[in-house]
């Protein structure tokens, strides 16, 4: 029997269809990395592992995964300025780097906001990885880290530049081709940088004053590219509950602007079809929009009561993961917008990523020796995960803090059994 009255909330639980086999990582404010897996066609996700010891000074602010089949790597940026490169299969720390550039500068003053692990530069050798990091004050840098088995990191090439002298960066994203990066923040208009030349190629302009003459200050809280192949279109969410679509080949002002509820847009994620975006805000509302028309496709109803900090879209399966301040990781079905499962994780979560290489079958042990696992996670905005586990020093790429949770899916298939 369904609702007694049309307007009352549903009182009888709908059978949840269960979760497809997935593996995801969450990162929280105590620096813990929790591994959540769901096995079988209709499994229930459970926490299978926890890496690291609870310590609030090790709060994870950003994370990035390269979930390639061989030598996957997970990069984590912590509040104190440490970057750690971890083996996503078992949480072993490969490298830990204290990535504060200026030793005189207090790490706490310039905490990382972004980290991106480049995928493309890892193919050749597994001995080094390249990371893009960004601090809140606008200091971006790309470093290559040598990951040697002796567990010592040597920083190789190191490019750094100032993204913005004034204002705080609070969101970043690296595009699919890993040539461009977006940065935006409080008082910082969204700008795109060419990573090879470290030059700014485009800056947004604020929308014209509205008819009432009300001016709302610039404050971008989340950003993502619309598709992996095209760096020219991207979506940004503001503190003023607006979702804006920008096209750099068209104009500097937003092409389309949507208003969503009343709290800041804390996370945006794109779907692979390039037309749908998922938006999460400060009061826990998650919705999907069709960006071509600007229409709200629907909200994800699942009793989420806390701000959504990170959204991750699985690259293959039609599932979406969201986590946030209510300490739950929720897995949703993309098509039906139904909650597949909610896992309680006890701490405020800051990021989540998927491991897309996960399968249920028993595979011959993979030998991801992630020496040089530099996982580039461009698109996956690694949801800052507080990983407690061996943090590989992933140099935080200063990516525009994408509020989106990248569904980084890790492919640790081999290990699982």
């Amino acid at each position, binding site marked *: *029997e369904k609702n*007694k009255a049309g307007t009352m*909330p*549903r*009182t009888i639980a709908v059978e949840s269809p269960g979760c497809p086999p997935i593996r995801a990582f969450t990162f929280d*404010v*105590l620096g*813990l990395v929790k591994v959540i897996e769901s096995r079988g066609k209709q499994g229930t996700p459970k926490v299978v592992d926890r890496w690291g010891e*609870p*310590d*609030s000074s090790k709060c994870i602010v950003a994370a990035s995964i390269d979930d390639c089949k061989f030598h996957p790597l997970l990069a984590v940026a912590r509040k104190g300025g440490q970057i750690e490169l971890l083996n996503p299969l078992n949480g072993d720390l490969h490298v830990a780097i204290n990535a504060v550039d200026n030793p005189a500068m207090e790490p706490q003053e310039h905490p990382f906001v972004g980290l991106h692990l480049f995928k493309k530069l890892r193919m050749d050798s597994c001995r080094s990885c390249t990371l893009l990091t960004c601090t809140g004050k606008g200091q971006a840098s790309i470093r290559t880290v040598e990951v040697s088995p002796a567990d010592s990191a040597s920083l190789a090439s190191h490019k750094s530049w100032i993204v913005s002298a004034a204002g705080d960066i609070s969101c970043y994203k690296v595009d699919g081709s890993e040539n461009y990066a977006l940065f935006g923040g409080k008082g910082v208009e969204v700008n795109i940088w060419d990573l090879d030349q470290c030059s700014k190629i485009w800056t947004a302009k604020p929308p014209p004053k509205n008819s009432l003459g009300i001016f709302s200050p610039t*404050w971008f809280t989340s950003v993502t590219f619309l598709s992996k192949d095209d760096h020219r279109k991207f979506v940004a969410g503001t*503190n*003023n509950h607006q979702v804006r679509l920008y096209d750099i080949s068209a104009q500097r002002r937003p092409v389309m602007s949507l208003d969503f509820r*009343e*709290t*800041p847009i*804390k996370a945006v994620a794109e779907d692979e079809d390039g037309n749908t975006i998922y938006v999460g805000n*400060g*009061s*826990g509302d998650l919705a999907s929009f069709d960006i071509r028309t600007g229409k709200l496709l629907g909200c994800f*109803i699942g*009793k989420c*009561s*806390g*701000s959504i900090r990170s959204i991750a879209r699985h690259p293959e399966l039609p599932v979406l993961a969201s986590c946030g*301040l*209510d*300490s739950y990781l929720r897995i949703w079905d993309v098509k039906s917008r139904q909650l597949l499962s909610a896992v*309680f994780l*006890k*701490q*405020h979560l800051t990021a989540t990523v998927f491991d897309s290489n996960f399968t249920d079958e028993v595979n011959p042990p993979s030998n991801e020796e992630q020496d040089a696992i530099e996982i580039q996670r461009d698109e996956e905005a690694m949801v800052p995960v507080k990983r407690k586990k061996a943090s590989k020093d992933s140099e935080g790429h200063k990516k525009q803090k994408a509020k989106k949770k990248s569904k980084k899916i890790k492919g640790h298939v081999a290990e699982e059994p």
Partner: protein
Amino acid sequence: MGGKRKGRENKGLEGEEDNMADGGYRSSASNSGHDNVDGSNAKRQLLPSMIKNKEKRSAVHAKLKHQKKLEKRKKIKARDAAEKRALELGEEPLVRKTPRTIENTRELDETICKPDDDELFVGNDADEFSSILKQEQTPKVLITTCRFNSTRGPAFITELLSVIPNAHYYKRGTYDLKKIVEYAKKRDFTSLIVVHSNRREPAVSILHEFDGFLIDALVIIGLPDGPTAHFKLSRLVLRKDIKNHGNPTSHEPELVLNNFTTRLGHRIARLLQSLFPVEPNFRGRRVVTFHNQRDFIFFRHHRYIFETKEVKQADSKGDVAKVSKGEKKSQEKTIVRLQYVIVEVLMWQIDGLQSALIGLEKHQSLMPNKECGPRFTLKLISLQHGTFDSKGGEYEWVHKPEMDTSRRRFFL
């Protein structure tokens, strides 16, 4: 509804089960419950809801209810007689079944704090209240109101000032709440309480007067960057309206926080705890209670006295002098005495303490306590991360109507 009823006539037994699952206000529900006992008769018995004639239908329903009532009375009589007999014969009487309450049948909640959770303790150390609760900072509370009505000092505020030690009242003026937060931070306040009232009272109103405004809500902001809790306030009774009220002293009160079991509840309990000084003054015999039941937090403020059990109540009522704290007899009464309980301990020993509280209330001679200070009920509406920020705030917990789908689910 009508359609369903018609359909049910044809279904017979299934119809009755449908009835049962349906609303309780349906007379058929009770009937079907009754009918299911002898399922074989179900098809033949006429459900009251099937009768179209209202008078006849209500008569049949009334008769059924009366029958049920008589049966229940008979059962109770039989049970009491059996117990009495068993006691006389010296046997063990039958154990009474525990009644099923909403608290008993509360939905299993995975967010309930567990005693062996290291993450919980580390989280506590790292949260915004730990410096106050570890006594590195003394609580200093700033109380203010919402705009436009702080002209005449309201009674509620003065009572709050007497309840919370080291509390200061500042008139609101027209300052922005964010500016007030900045001001309070500069002056080293640890919490900010905003008493919010919006509605003007109707022409005749006795309860929660506030110079013409009804007090609606309480916003507690932890400082410097603590969370903001927004409570709805109801059932406010001022001290002057309580019969036989006592007068509070200025000793540090003991704090009792009951039943805050989930992680969210734990956090709210710590927020409330951070308003009061950590070390109570037991000699002051003053106790402030926040009792959480079904997501409503009941606030009470008492003064208690000790009394020996043998002494008759008549002497002791109101006689504060009978303090047996220092005496050896206090040993016996340690169960009744309200200790200063930290929330973590409370959770593990909740049964013991609650029974102690019940003992307190029942055995007046044991511990007559005078209620002083206001009495009110709070309900959490939202918990915001960071200080008050109506536009840019992100919520740790906000109440959404979609959460109310079960009567047995509570969040605190």
